[in-house]
């Protein structure tokens, strides 16, 4: 079974995003970029399935600017076998919307015929939480979103999902789509030898047009602004003063 893992290049999670003064977006110039953290978890899960003998090949895919190659090389260094970059115009901030990403992934899945596609549940840039579900709909296949554990057994996969009240377990017929939650695994770091080896692994470059997908956005961003800033309040000297303040709030 082949596993497809879409990985997105996003602002590093340690960086505090700054809104551009002209309100056109978030400033990404000279900002550290990394693989979306949920996608690292997706790559790791695919590698573990391969190590368990449940998968034969892992193909990483990224839709983005030329620099998204770096993200794919990271996936290859972690253990993916080959990569596909679907390159989009380079202008900063040109983000492809989840619907268009899902359409491109659907076209790639039609070609590659993976048994499992593992995505992140959410990209920490646009916070959409849509792509996996959309891909599953376009393919007419089942989805195990917000996965906490994934077990492939024969022609199906059992996914334990992190839901609002706790956990829910579903059984999905393969091929299936899974999206990762934080507790699925702890991604490995790529070792230096593996980073070197990754440079030799195949990386194909395509464009959205190769898959016949129109990436014109459906949503227009009219403006991007700073959220209201919260002012720091006071510090109390001791517990006695805190008790007074809490009592004054009328909750105790």
């Amino acid at each position, binding site marked *: 079974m082949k596993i497809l893992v879409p990985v997105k290049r996003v602002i590093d999670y340690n960086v505090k995003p700054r809104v551009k003064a002209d309100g056109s977006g978030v400033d990404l110039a000279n900002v550290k970029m990394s693989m979306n953290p949920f996608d690292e978890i997706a790559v790791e899960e695919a590698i573990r399935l391969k190590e368990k003998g449940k998968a034969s090949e892992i193909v990483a895919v990224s839709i983005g600017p030329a620099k998204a190659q770096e993200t794919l090389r990271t996936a290859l260094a972690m253990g993916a076998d080959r990569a596909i970059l679907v390159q989009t115009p380079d202008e900063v901030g040109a983000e492809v919307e989840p*619907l268009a990403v899902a359409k491109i992934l659907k076209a790639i899945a039609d070609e590659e015929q993976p048994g499992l596609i593992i995505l992140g549940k959410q990209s920490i840039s646009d916070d959409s939480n849509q792509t996996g579900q959309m891909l599953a709909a376009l393919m007419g296949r089942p989805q195990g979103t917000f996965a906490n554990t994934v077990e492939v057994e024969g022609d199906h996969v059992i996914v334990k999902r992190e839901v609002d009240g706790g956990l829910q377990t579903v059984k999905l017929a393969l091929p299936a789509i899974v999206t990762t939650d934080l507790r699925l695994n702890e991604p490995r770091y790529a070792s230096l030898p593996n980073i070197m080896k990754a440079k030799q692994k195949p990386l194909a470059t395509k464009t959205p047009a190769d898959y016949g997908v129109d990436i014109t956005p459906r949503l227009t961003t009219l403006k991007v602004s700073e959220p209201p800033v919260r002012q720091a309040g006071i510090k109390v000297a001791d517990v006695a003063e805190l008790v007074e303040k809490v009592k004054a709030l009328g909750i105790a």
Partner: protein
Amino acid sequence: MKTLVLVEHDNAKLSDATLPVVTAAGKLGEVHLLVAGHNCGAVAEAAAKIAGVAKVLVADDAAYAHGLAENVAPLVAQLMGDYDAFLAPATTSGKNIAPRVAAQLDVMQISEILSVEGPKTFTRPIYAGNAIATVESSDPKLVITVRGTAFEKAAAEGGSAPIEAVTGPGDAGTSSFVGSEIAKSERPELTSAKVIVSGGRALKDAETFAAVITPLADKLGAAIGASRAAVDAGYVPNDYQVGQTGKIVAPEVYFAIGISGAIQHLAGMKDSKVIIAINKDEDAPIFQVADIGLVADLYQAVPELTAAL
């Protein structure tokens, strides 16, 4: 404009998460509700009583019993022939189903809206709430998830909408429900609680977390929350996580105890009315958003506070 709102429920009870979505939908036009479930008549009746609702559709079928997206999304997509907008709460079930509906309708979803600015214009948080985008849709139909803390709850009583049975394609045959581990608790729910006591990595382990945080929460009748670090380390279940990728909360009072205040955590609680932080590090970022801060060792401060309340 005619809107269809997905009702959140467990077949027996309507969840409060539905109510802010009704308010958001009301800003767009006429509000109809969809109850998709099994033996869910009581939910439909409760839905019909919500103020401002014009009609309730009920799809009662074993295929919808567990809210499986593979089965519910085609039902919604079919009903959307008669509607201009579909709205769901930005809960795990809403987030699971709505994008699947959007793709079936070939429209972009607008995730976690904070406000309705016009018939096709909305604000939504991006980058963990560090930026707010105003977006306009060019799609013929809207698919939206609604952040519950951003809209007032519609009144649960006062309406008397007619209830109409509908049927959908039923079981897609690709997925099945195996089981769930849903903890029953007497505590208020995290997303609707007036007071929340949250603990972080500093709480050491599950026993210590329970020994320090629970008595304070009990005293205040509060819900219990946690940082990702506390959840990852197994101090508390995953659904206690507050933050960018956990639950978004906005209680009257939020206690952050032994939590540093990473941007991902702040994203989930910075709209709380009053934030109280207890941390031994006076430079912890949580103090930049806290209304009341106490620099102290939580192992002394929290038991003292609990005893004094």
